[in-house]
């Protein structure tokens, strides 16, 4: 009677001690899922989701505090990737895939203040003091950081129009 109790007690103590040590020495720094989510995010730190940047937004998504559909530049494609990563099923039909927008500078109004050019996170604006600024469409992510700072309101966000290379047939709609 005594032997099994003692042996089980010793076993429990030993394993419990092992777990305690492992918890201290093999501690995981932060949520590993958050890092994976960050890797998927666009990374332009645009703040359109309401979080200060892509890192905090990724943490919120990983912990379940934020919906996976919160990133406007990522759109539907990102939401689907996140759904696959996190193993959640989200109703993506609600995510109206906002057409990708890019900034356009109205050259008649630009005064060459360089404010937008300094704020652009992807160096998509070229310009210098007292020179008309211009946007590289290929590098622009449509984050709207420049849109807010322009003193003459000469920046407008335009939908990216399809070209022969990017156009494709829409999905056929079947009834029933």
């Amino acid at each position, binding site marked *: 009677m005594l032997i099994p109790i003692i042996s089980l007690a010793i076993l429990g103590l030993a394993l419990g001690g092992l777990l305690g040590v492992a918890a201290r020495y093999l501690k995981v720094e932060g949520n590993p899922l958050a890092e994976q989510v960050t890797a998927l995010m666009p990374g332009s*730190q645009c703040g359109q989701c309401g979080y200060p940047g892509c890192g905090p937004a990724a943490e919120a998504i990983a912990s379940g505090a934020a919906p996976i559909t919160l990133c406007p530049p990522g759109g539907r494609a990102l939401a689907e990737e996140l759904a696959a990563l996190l193993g959640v099923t989200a109703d993506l039909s609600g995510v109206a895939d906002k057409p990708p927008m890019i900034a356009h500078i109205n050259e008649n109004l630009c005064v060459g203040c360089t404010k937008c050019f300094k704020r652009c*996170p992807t160096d*998509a604006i070229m310009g210098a003091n007292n020179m008309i600024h211009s946007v590289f469409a290929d590098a622009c992510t449509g984050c709207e950081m420049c849109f807010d700072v322009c003193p003459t309101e000469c920046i407008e966000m335009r939908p990216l129009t399809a*070209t*022969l290379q990017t156009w*494709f047939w829409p*999905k056929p709609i079947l009834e029933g």
Partner: protein
Amino acid sequence: MKLFRIRGGIHPDDRKQLAAGQAIEDLPLPALLHIPLQQHIGAPASPAVRRGQRVAKGDLIAQGQGVISAPVHAPTSGRIMGVGSYPAHHASGLSVPTVTLQPDGEDRWGDQIQGVADPFALDPDEIAARVGAAGIVGLGGATFPAAVKLNLRKKYRLHTLVINGAECEPYLTCDDRLMREQADAIVDGIRIVAHALGVKQIIIGIENNKPEAQAAMAVAASIDPTIRLARLPARYPMGSEKHLVQTLTGRETPARGLTADIGVVVHNPATAFAVHEALRFGYPLVSRVVTVSGGAIAQPRNLRVLLGTRVQNLLDHCGGFREEPARLVSGGPMMGQPLPSARVPMVKGSNGVLALTAAETSLSQPMPCIRCASCVQACPCGLLPLELAARIRAADLEGAVRLGLMDCIGCGSCAYVCQANLPLVQFFNYAKGEMAARGRAKQKQAETKRLIEQRAARIEAIQQAKREAMAARKREADAKKKAAATTQAATAETEV
């Protein structure tokens, strides 16, 4: 010669008799030409002319840009009316950069046009360069720059050139007519291409529904013992290059690979003809043969058309419509694309203009799939069209890709046999486009990350430099102060 079987395929009514009897005819010079700057796969050409400039036939009007691109030449002599944008020969109806040319009626070739006396004395690189400079692209419809294909010999071990005279699309007869009427020129072009590729054998594949073309090509090809003629069974899609190569050699091209992976290069007879013209006479690609056919066309014809001619000019020359067409199609009825209007110009890749009546298009209401698997039997690629379509319909594109969506050649055999009239190819085309768009989005995301990192590194470097400059200034000021203090001390000492 021994032929191998391919799986799947269908036998549509070929309706070639509508235009097959009509000899190729030159379309009269139109009043205006709208020449798009992108008539090929790859980077668009950049304009090399200005408004008001006079050009001769064959003058360069747009320069190819990058490795995979093709230049564009003036189809006739005249004056450049403008460089602007004009609706493209494309189902989307989008506008593309286009040069508008007003012909002067002389149709005068430029002075620089000059052929080569003996193309077989030329270096393969020189032939590829001339083919590239002539703006020649694959005229079967894929419009891949021909010069790039000639340079495949540098990367692959090639042994066979296949000439794809299958023309398996119903209605189209332009290759058929060209092979009947210009067999000698085509064979000359084929031999030049073979010389440039350095291949040992040449096979010309022609379907059995074109006996006249087979006979004409057999006679013309008898001058070269390396050329063999293969009489192909008439079956759609025999003209798909991978399936044609499998029929002729028994070897299957690897998934998403090139036929060059198994040592074979495929060219169209019209491309070979264009190579002949470019090398022997120096003519760049400025015109092509087009079949105008369909039940709604009053007089179906085969026309030699200057690139940039409006579709409407072709229709008018063929007597207009017999009845109101249900659909205007560019290319064949199986893989062709609907045209948004008859205003659009003809381009290098357009081999047919079809005006189809409502009876020919047989548009009917789609019904639920009954899983009869007719499409599985018809698919020449061994795919499961019904499963693919079900996944795409349920927005599971990844699932469709896992089932081999990217191996689909979009031939439409499945939709042709579908009992439920499901728009299967439309589903696949949408899914391929969507997957490509996602790929581009991913690429842009990676690019954005790179740009952000570069910017962060640059800003850090600037701040570091500022801090160092500040520290240096401080050290300098300190040193000055110290020096001033010591001199002061020294003068004080001397005073003492």
